[in-house]
């Protein structure tokens, strides 16, 4: 493994306010992940898994602590630069897929590259290649409503990979699919790992965790050793 981790999280904390009541979702979390690792984050509901992922993904501001992705301290970057970091260093896979319903499978994957101004021809070629690698070659021109849950999740995985991010963050990617599809997704992640892709998966499913290199347990916002 590389000496320099691809992701370093140090003393990270985040407190929400529900009205006037403070809720500490993430408290003093420290860990690091090396390039090409497939890591699971597990913990009971409400323990702060999604919050942790959102903080790493620059979708939410941190209160204290630092997050270093691919050498960039993203907690010390002006807000203006965050979109660029999101598209260059990060890829997201959501539990509810979150595909744009008006676009086809190909359109959804290609869209991710538009913001980084990849030329159209190149975008389409790469999107098609990614979808084909995920066994979606015959579904390129289908809309999300015409795809099964498993197929939609594969489209969203292709979308997450579109810009070759340093880290892919997946929040319960198998939460809404059957066990056969879950196994396909696990295989896909392992395949991606073999190409050096770093992946963090939040999951409730022990089968998913089993296939990961490492499991990070979180309870009430803090890591359990």
């Amino acid at each position, binding site marked *: 493994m590389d000496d320099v981790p691809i992701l370093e999280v140090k003393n990270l904390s985040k407190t929400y306010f529900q009205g006037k009541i403070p809720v500490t979702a993430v408290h003093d979390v420290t860990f690091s992940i090396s390039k090409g690792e497939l890591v699971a984050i597990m913990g009971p509901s409400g323990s702060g898994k999604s919050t942790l992922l*959102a903080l790493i993904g620059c*979708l939410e501001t941190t209160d204290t602590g630092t997050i270093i992705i691919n050498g960039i301290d993203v907690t010390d970057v002006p807000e203006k630069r965050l*979109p660029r970091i999101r598209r*260059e260093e990060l890829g*997201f896979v959501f539990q509810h897929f*979150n595909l744009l*319903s*008006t676009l086809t499978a190909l*359109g959804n994957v290609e869209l*991710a590259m538009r913001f980084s101004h990849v030329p159209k021809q190149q975008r389409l070629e790469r999107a098609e290649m990614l979808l084909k690698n995920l066994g979606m070659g015959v579904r390129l021109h289908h809309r999300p409503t015409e795809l099964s849950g498993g197929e939609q999740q594969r489209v969203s995985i292709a979308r997450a990979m579109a810009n070759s991010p340093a880290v892919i963050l997946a929040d319960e990617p198998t939460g809404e699919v059957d066990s056969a599809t879950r196994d396909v997704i696990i295989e896909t992640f392992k395949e991606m790992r073999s190409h050096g892709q770093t992946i963090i998966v939040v999951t409730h499913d022990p089968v998913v965790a089993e296939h990961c290199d490492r499991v990070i347990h979180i309870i009430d916002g803090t890591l359990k050793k």
Partner: protein
Amino acid sequence: MFDIIIRSAMQRKVRTILTISGIALGIFALVVMGAMSENFNQTFDKSMSLTSDKVRVFAESGMFGAGLTNDKVSDVKRVPGVKDAYGMLMMTFDDDQFGMSGKQVIGVAPEKSAKILYPVELKSGRFLEAGDTYQTVIGTSIAGEYDLQVGSKLELHEKNFTVVGELEYTGSFYDSTAAIPLDTAQDVYNVGDTLSVILTAPEDGTDVELLAKMIELNVKGTSTLSPTELQEEAGQSLLILSVITISSALLAAIIGGLSVMNTMLMSVTERTREFGVLKAMGAETKDILMITLGESALMGIVGGVFGIGAGGVAVYLLNSWLETKGIILFTITPRLLLVAMLFAIVIGMIAGLYPAYRATRMSPMEALRHG
């Protein structure tokens, strides 16, 4: 981003169509009202340019007041700087319409009719001549409405007149004017030797404004309107008319804009999650602005095109219907089209500003949690 905009608008077809109709209706009103106002403006400009060299002399008590009679014409002529003066009687064309039709009868000295009407030329026939009595020279609108040619009969105030000449089209009030000999007019309308106005042509090189003052001083019981004063006075009422027509049309267009705003707010709220996803994928603020403002601008553009199209058709139909009555009420000018189109786009954009701002302000995580 254009395909995303189109797809988003197409996804909510009914709502989009309703919104576009709102804008189109507003722009339609703007075009029709604007065309009316443009027509008034043009008629006024042409009328002014055709009579700009003459000083108008009225009775002191106003245009319909007593006191301005035939003998005042020679008084006016004696004022130094006056080249010639022509008495004129102006009456409404239709006795029963109180002049609402905009048509008028003017009584002029027949031997001077060519000079008085100058620079308007004849289309056919001749001007009035000395010795004419129940003869008339008519404008194109009157000729068109009553289907008259040289030789036709025209009834004015229960008397028959023979058309001896038709004027060229001018786009001014002359088009809806029938000129008859002054003596006959005073007889027929039973007004003795009263005049409505004395048109005064100044000598070359005379200061017209000064001349107007001189006439007022020298001829008792008169007041004058110099070309500039006339322009100011008429221009003011024209301005009020423009303000009324244009502002009612603007109001319609603004209501259209509010409906765009409402639609965009709904659309942005419904798509909160979508914007969250786009932000997670690294969309910049400007990308989000482009998508939202683009959609509202597009609705403005499409609404504008339909509104202008419908307005153009309506104006065309109205004009061709009115033409049979000898009236032209609407003129569509390039600047009107430009203003209407720009207005449609600007309304769309402005209406989209706040919804777009809301979309950019949402934190990505908040947006993703939404719904």
